[in-house]
Every structure is written in structure tokens, then in C-alpha cells.
């Protein structure tokens, strides 16, 4: 025993290194929700406070661009109002709508920290538990999809950007009604990849990719991007498709957090099916 202790003491630099390195790698590998929530709750008040102050200063430099985006979005929304449309049918319009129920709830949030240059990018927003945010909510901006909420603290949340190894979004090429999966290969933050599109359909450059709405997270029909490169590898059954993200991840300022009000019901139901 004494010799073992003496041996460890003699090589204490190496053993301390082993302990610290193992601890760090354990933190990388172990990504359980509970552990993340504990860490996030401990640290987010400090980091969130600092990022909040920082973004309230730098936010001024982006006001002009943000205003233009908002104005464009307003114009688009005005068009959908009844006042902006001509009634082509002379039948009575029923204002009391019992056919539609609200499916998604939108919360505006400000980006207070963001990155695009890492392999796995995360975004911090200034909304948290207090504002009804929970993990697995979608994050979009007027241009397109941005990411998914992964951890929440009282006042802040971390969003897994679409520019992340673990991000997978179900999407569709609307013109062809073909389903695929959106992933990010980690090389270029401007381009995403669309997989699972079979080679027998005729995909064209410039086709738009939208969310499919099959994921319980993202609403249907949110823009994802526009197809830029199409490749077929010899002997493969699926295309290698690169598309340009419609959202500009480098200039995110305000985003919407989208809550699917039927998510729990849908997940519950899908569990039943899987169990059987």
C-alpha cells in the first residue's frame, strides 16, 4: 500500500492530469438532461447576465437591419389580413372560427450569444422557464429555421443551432413533395445538407426546402433553404444535396420560440404505437 501511495505521489503530476482530463471528457460525453439542467441553472444567471449587458450594447449597431426585416415581415402579415384581401365569394364570412384551433404559440426572444464557427454551435436567448419556455421548442426567425431549445434556466435558454452535429430536422422539397432530413456537415455555415432524397426524383437547383411538420417540434412550411449543389455518388440511392440556409446565422438578433401546443398529446400517442 505504502509503495502504491509513494508511486502515485512520485507521479502526482500525471495522476492529477488523468483525473482532470477524465472529468472533462466525462462532462463532454455525459449529456443527460438532468445534469445539463443542473449546470445550466448554476451558471446561466452569471453568463446570461453578462451576455445580456453585452448584447444591449452591441444591439444598437444592428437596429437598422432589424427594422428593415421587421417592416418586411409586417408587410407580409398585412397581406394575410382580411382587410388586405378582396372577397371573391359573396357568401357571408363567418368570423367565429370553430374549425381552427391554435396549434403553435410564438414568443419573441433576443439572441444574446451566438456562434457559427464551431462544429457544434449553440445560441443563448433571453427567455426561460419564467416565460414558459421548455426544451424541445422550435426556434425560427422571419427568414427560416434557427434551431431547437435544449436547456432552460429561470431567465435564459440555450438553443442548439441548426449548425450542430446533433441537429436533425425533417424537411420537404415542396415542388416535388419529397421528404428528407436536414443536417449540417460542419464545413460551411452558409450551407446545410439535405439527405434521404432518392435519386429517381428530379431535383433542380433553386428548389425550396421547407419543414415537413412531421417532427412535433417545427411547424409545417417554415422555410429552411434553397438548393444549391446536387451530387449523385456512384452506387448510391440518395442524393448529396447542399442548400443555402434561408436564415443568416451570423446576424441573428431577434427570433421566435415556437411552442407546439399539441406536442404532449402527439408524443403520448406515438409512445402507444411504439410500445405495441
Amino acid at each position, binding site marked *: 500500500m505504502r509503495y502504491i501511495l509513494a508511486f502515485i505521489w512520485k507521479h502526482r503530476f500525471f495522476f*492529477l492530469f488523468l483525473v482532470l482530463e477524465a472529468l*472533462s471528457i466525462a462532462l463532454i460525453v455525459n449529456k443527460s438532461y438532468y445534469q445539463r439542467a443542473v449546470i445550466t441553472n448554476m451558471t446561466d444567471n452569471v*453568463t446570461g447576465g453578462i451576455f445580456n449587458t*453585452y448584447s444591449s450594447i452591441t444591439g444598437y449597431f444592428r437596429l437598422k437591419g432589424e427594422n428593415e426585416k421587421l417592416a418586411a415581415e409586417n408587410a407580409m402579415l398585412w397581406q394575410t389580413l382580411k382587410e388586405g384581401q378582396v372577397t371573391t365569394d359573396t357568401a357571408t364570412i363567418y368570423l367565429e372560427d370553430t374549425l381552427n384551433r391554435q396549434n403553435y404559440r410564438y414568443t419573441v426572444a433576443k439572441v444574446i450569444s451566438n*456562434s457559427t464557427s464551431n462544429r457544434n454551435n449553440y445560441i443563448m436567448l433571453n427567455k426561460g422557464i419564467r416565460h414558459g419556455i421548455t426544451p424541445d421548442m422550435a426556434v425560427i426567425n422571419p427568414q427560416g429555421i434557427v434551431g431547437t431549445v435544449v436547456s432552460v434556466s429561470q431567465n435564459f435558454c440555450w438553443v442548439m443551432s441548426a449548425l450542430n452535429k446533433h441537429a436533425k430536422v425533417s424537411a420537404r422539397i415542396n415542388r416535388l413533395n419529397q421528404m428528407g432530413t436536414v443536417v449540417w456537415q460542419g464545413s460551411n455555415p452558409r450551407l446545410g445538407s439535405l439527405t434521404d432524397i432518392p435519386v429517381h426524383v428530379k431535383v433542380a437547383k433553386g428548389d425550396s426546402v421547407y419543414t415537413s411538420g412531421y417532427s412535433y417540434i417545427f411547424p409545417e412550411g417554415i422555410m429552411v433553404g434553397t438548393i444549391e449543389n446536387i451530387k449523385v455518388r456512384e452506387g448510391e440511392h440518395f442524393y448529396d444535396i447542399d442548400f443555402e440556409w434561408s436564415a443568416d446565422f451570423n446576424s441573428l438578433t431577434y427570433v421566435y420560440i415556437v411552442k407546439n401546443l399539441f406536442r404532449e398529446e402527439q408524443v403520448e400517442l406515438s409512445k402507444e404505437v411504439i410500445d405495441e
Partner: protein
Amino acid sequence: MSRSYLALFMRFVVLVAAQVLIVDHINLGGYISPALYLLFIILLPFQVPGWFLLVSSFFLGMSIDIFSNSTGLNAAASVFVAFVRPAVIRGVGAPADYEGHLNPGIPDMGAQWFITYSTVLILIHQLMIGILESFYLSEAGTILLRVILSSAVTLLMIVIVEYLFMRRKR
């Protein structure tokens, strides 16, 4: 000695703040994420005890991780850099007056020594980050490109900061 530890603590805080508030927000295209905070490990005095080297590097990496939601990634890379630092110093050529108050900066060791020594540590650090960040072998080319570009920019930043803030030799 306690005064110099206070100075080290200040350097720690300033470098973490500079990293998460300035460097992380500079957009240099998708491949490049420089790690200016590594300057802390690079500039730790020669005679600093081993446990202090490892523990302070661990907390340095953890601080960066907390701010970028990458739990453990920068900590693992930093601890590894701290572990190889004594060997790198021996490899590049340790100063003869080891017990004196020499620091591994440009004023004491000269620009050529400093750049060689920093380059080795930066490359090891970026390589660790690249490997830990993405376990896919298929991305090896991208990882390598990322490591090389990030290392080059990190080295440039560290040399510039060292020149700007070093205390001249009396």
C-alpha cells in the same frame, strides 16, 4: 509570491472576458475559431508548481465552456496542453536559469523561442478540440483544415497581444 498570484488571477479574468466577449464574436468565416485564452497557459511562469498548472488550466477551460455551452470541451483541451507544457518547454529548450524569475514571454526568451513554443501548444490544443468536437472519421479533412486555420489565427493574435502588453526588460 501572493502578489504574482493576484496578477495571474487578473490575467485569467481579462483573458476569459476577452475570449467570450470579443474573440468569439469576430466572424472569420466558418472554419476559424481562435483561442486567445490559451495565452494564460503559455505565459504561466516557469517555476509554477505542477498542480497549479493543471488546476488553473482546468478552470480556465471550464470558464470558457460555461460561456459557450460546450461543457468539458475546452477544459479537456486545456488540461492536455497544461500536461504537455513541461515536455514542450524541455523540447524547445529550457532556460539555463530555471530558478530565476524568467517568464516564458518574448522579453525573457526572445521572439523566435516564444513563437516556436506557442505554435506547438496551440496546435496540440486545436487538434484536441477538433478531435473531441467531432468523432467522425469522415470529417477528418474538415477537422484538419479547421485546426490549421484556427491555429494560424490564434498564433497571430497571441503574438500581437504579447507584443502589445509585454513588460519591456529593464
